[in-house]
């Protein structure tokens, strides 16, 4: 399909392609480029991570590590036991490299601590910028779920081209942007990340050939993107004209509700209308959320189909100057009726009450401009009413529209058109505002889940939309600094003082507690693991069906 390869070929086309800049298809050489989705991000100074955590001396941690050895049932543990463990470690080296156990952390921490003063060294963790390479290194070395990331992109436990031909792009510390990286296994990816220490890395499409070999291929059609998850990007900056609590890169619990309702609407539509099942929502680290639709059918969509989905979901159109941004035809499409149902409650509580968007005189004009233009009388009546009682809340003003419409010269008001306009207003203030370019293109890159946002230090954790969408707190997301402290503060759970049985269990447990399990990242990684397992299961079944069909048809075709 020509659509699917528009980007790589655009280099040859005499007509400029807009996306060429948005995505630098032409980055032949690693080049400085600004990722398209975040305009202001890097310009904002780090808002600062809290430095108020109580300092814990390293001696304490050392104690916590050695504690088990000296206490209770484990006391009698023979010295050879350790060696035995190491033996196991080697056999299981894969896992241990990925998720090293406590002891190693303690060692590394001591090595890393530059100052001999132990208290200071701990304080340092808090005061460090999130982008501090040392902190980042520890995170990627000890906490990042490499294996699940690999399985997620690879769709199978053994390496395939789904992972091997996948493009990764690194933003290096000096802000250079390194595209077309690829790796056969998660281990190689991990090594390169640790070597280059990118401030973040992004995931692109699977190509028809290894991205690293792209220059050796004779013609451009031999190197084209084949598949990528269908992605969505919702960003609070797009809500700046309707949110009153924050602007630019700042967010709070109040305006995060816009993201919550957006996720609900988009997620429902993708599942019910398009029949997608594997949708991963990820906090983008600062002020938005990404969706990764991972179903096989979604991954192989070409640009035209992606555009179709984007268009289907897009309701708010028009730039800053276009006035009313929602102009829907009636009757509303079933998708919009359903979305309106979802959004109504949010409009009342999260917009009218929390945002109070029309309180001032200037703001109320915005609301009046959205009412049907042929009902001048209503507009004047409302304006008079509100001028006479200034500082009226948006809730009351919203209710006033109906009251005034009912009382004043009732014959003239077209209730149908007023209702429609009110619906449009509800949608304009609640309906998801998607950064649609991300969804339209097969070869758009998007920041990987679990990467640390360099500005905030927050980890881009997945959001469990089924169980805890409402409760997700973007400001409470673990930061890389807090996580590293958590590892250090972690104490092995007291083994039940139950005698002989306890000893064996204790050893077992100690061996299997990997670093992320000691931190608040645990829940997120477990959720991700569950998601990946579900995806791989479906993938395997799909393969089985396909193979059976092929075998079946193979017999029929015999000649």
């Amino acid at each position: 399909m020509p659509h699917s390869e528009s980007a790589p070929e655009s280099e040859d086309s005499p007509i400029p392609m807009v996306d060429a800049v948005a995505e630098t298809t032409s980055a032949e050489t690693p080049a400085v480029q600004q990722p398209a989705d975040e305009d202001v991000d890097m310009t904002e100074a780090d808002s600062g991570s809290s430095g108020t955590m109580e300092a814990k001396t390293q001696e304490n941690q050392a104690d916590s590590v050695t504690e088990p050895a000296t206490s209770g049932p484990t006391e009698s543990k023979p010295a050879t036991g350790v060696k035995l463990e190491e033996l196991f470690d080697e056999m299981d080296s894969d896992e241990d490299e990925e998720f090293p156990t406590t002891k190693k952390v303690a060692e590394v921490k001591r090595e890393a601590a530059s100052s001999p003063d132990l208290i200071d060294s701990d304080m340092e963790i808090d005061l460090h910028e999130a982008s501090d390479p040392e902190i980042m290194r520890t995170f990627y070395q000890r906490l990042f779920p490499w294996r699940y990331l690999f399985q997620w992109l690879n769709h199978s436990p053994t390496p395939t081209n789904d992972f091997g031909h996948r493009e990764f792009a690194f933003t290096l510390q000096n802000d250079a942007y390194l595209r077309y990286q690829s790796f056969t296994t998660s281990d190689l990816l991990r090594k390169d990340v640790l070597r280059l220490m990118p401030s973040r890395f992004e995931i692109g499409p699977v190509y028809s050939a290894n991205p690293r070999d792209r220059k050796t291929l004779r013609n451009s059609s031999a190197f084209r993107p084949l598949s990528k998850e269908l992605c969505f990007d919702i960003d609070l900056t797009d809500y700046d004209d309707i949110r009153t609590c924050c602007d630019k890169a700042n967010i709070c619990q109040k305006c995060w509700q816009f993201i919550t309702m957006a996720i609900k609407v988009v997620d429902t539509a993708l599942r019910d209308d398009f029949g997608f099942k594997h949708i991963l929502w990820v906090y983008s680290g600062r002020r938005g959320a990404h969706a990764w639709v991972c179903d096989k059918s979604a991954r192989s969509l070409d640009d035209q189909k992606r555009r179709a989905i984007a268009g289907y979901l897009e309701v708010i159109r028009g730039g800053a100057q276009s006035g009313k941004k929602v102009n829907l035809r009636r009757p509303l499409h079933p998708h919009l009726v359903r979305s309106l149902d979802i959004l109504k409650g949010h409009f009342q509580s999260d917009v009218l009450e929390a945002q109070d968007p029309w309180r001032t005189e200037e703001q109320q004009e915005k609301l009046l401009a959205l009412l049907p233009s042929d009902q001048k009388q209503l507009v004047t009546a409302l304006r008079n009413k509100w001028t006479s009682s200034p500082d009226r809340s948006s809730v009351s003003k919203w209710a006033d529209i109906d009251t005034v419409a009912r009382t004043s010269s009732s014959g003239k008001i077209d209730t149908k058109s007023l209702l429609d306009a009110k619906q449009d207003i509800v949608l304009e203030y609640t309906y998801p505002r998607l950064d649609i370019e991300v969804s339209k293109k097969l070869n758009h890159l998007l920041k990987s889940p679990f990467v640390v946002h360099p500005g905030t230090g927050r980890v881009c954790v997945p959001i469990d939309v089924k169980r805890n969408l409402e409760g997700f707190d973007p400001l409470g997301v673990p930061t890389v600094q807090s996580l590293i402290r958590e590892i250090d503060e972690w104490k092995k759970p007291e083994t039940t003082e139950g005698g002989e049985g306890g000893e064996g269990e204790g050893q077992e447990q100690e061996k299997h507690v990997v670093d992320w399990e000691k931190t608040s990242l645990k829940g997120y990684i477990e959720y991700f693991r569950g998601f990946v397992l579900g995806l791989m299961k479906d993938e395997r079944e799909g393969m089985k069906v396909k193979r059976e069909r092929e075998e079946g048809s193979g017999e029929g075709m015999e000649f």
Partner: protein
Amino acid sequence: MLRSNVSRIDPKRRNVLDHRKKQFAEAAYKDTDYPHRLNFYSTPPTADITIEQFEQWAIDRLRILAELEACSFRNKSPAEAASHMKPLLDRYLPLDTNSSSSSQLFAQRQKDHYSHFILRLAFASTEDLRRRFTRVETMLFRMRLNADDSRERQAFINSLNLDWETVSDEEKRELASELAATASFGQKKGSYESQEEQTWCKVSWLRVPELVEQRRVYLRQGYAYVPAREQQAMVVSEFSSRLERQLELTARALPRLDEDDRLTPILAHLSKNFITPDASYVGTSSAISSADISARNIDTLVANHHFPACMSHLHRTLRRDAHLKHYGRLQYTLFLKGIGLNLEECLLFWRQSFNKITDDTFNKEYRYNVRHTYGDVGGDSNRRGGGYSPYSCQKILTEHPPGPGEAHGCPYRHFNMENLQTLLSQGMGVTDRGVLNGVKEDKEKQKFHMACNRVFEHLHKEEIKKAKEDGIMTAAQLETIVHPNEYFKRSYLLKNMGKMQGDVKMEG
């Protein structure tokens, strides 16, 4: 080397000799018949035609396609385009219905069939040409499909073997309200009373992406429920997707086209004559040699009303916010490049304009993009081609409509009337009621070019009058503007007529 020499001996005969090509050779003797007026062009022609026919048929079809594309540039509605095209079609590419009992049926259909395939060869070479060819061919197909006699159309559609599942009555009842809401989309009130009788078919949504995009179908679990009257759209999208696929294959086969030098020049010539208006605006052709275009006098140029509304809005926004979003920067940079601002000056201009950020931020985040636009960095072809060419009105009108907080696009299209009036009166000094009303009417009729030209004529009426009187500019030089850079150029030339008469005469 040796082998190709051998095969050069007798190219005519080779086809027959090569066993791998036997299957094609055989078809040469099979006559194609055309049971339907319309054609999905799935089988290539196999009979012999003369070289003159080859060229003439291709040129005739090209003429039609070029005109169709022009219609879409001018934003003609389908009905307007159809009436505009009818005489041309009758003249160059007539296609009569079966019922018309014309004796020319076979000849007409053959010409249609052959010319289509000749142009495929000519337009398969680059992505851009393929996309445009698919677009105009699809327009032509749609126009013909709509004009077709309903019985013949049905027969044609049935012959295509598109497997569509019909929705059962039971399911229809179950989804009654959803389907009703979908079916009445775009219909006039009352015209859908026969709801129950309407047939619905159910296909994977992947087959009707366009209908999905416009929410004209009901979607459930990946299936699209398509009302009967949208089936035409499905046929059309099927046509365009098949053509796209076929062109792709043609493109791959092109290098192996065993051709002597009779056809290749014709094909090359054909595709050259099919260039877009904005492609012709590369480099400095729109720049005025004697004009002083530099970063510091951009403001003056804006103040002198040399910039069309879209660019003057971008400029005002830039001055107000000291920032523009991505597409705004792109649209404006390309325009500035088109009027002759060189890269150094352009970088200087943006650096000075983004006065709230540090040098470091500018260098990191914006410098590269500006350079990329000028072809100073990037891939080989970008550098060789000198970057992108400035956007035409067509592109600005149809691609990337502005989202919240974005200032690019065409004000006549993307602004509401009030904001447009504010822009025109405050930004461009248009206060004449008549002009504003005219703009309003144009906007309502979606004639955005007309609105823009109206404003241009109003702002330059003195000069235009003078130019006409003195005979400096011919009528051709004053036809409708369809490119922002043309707007600038014409404006600049008109305002500086006295100073640079020589310049004006030579260029158009």
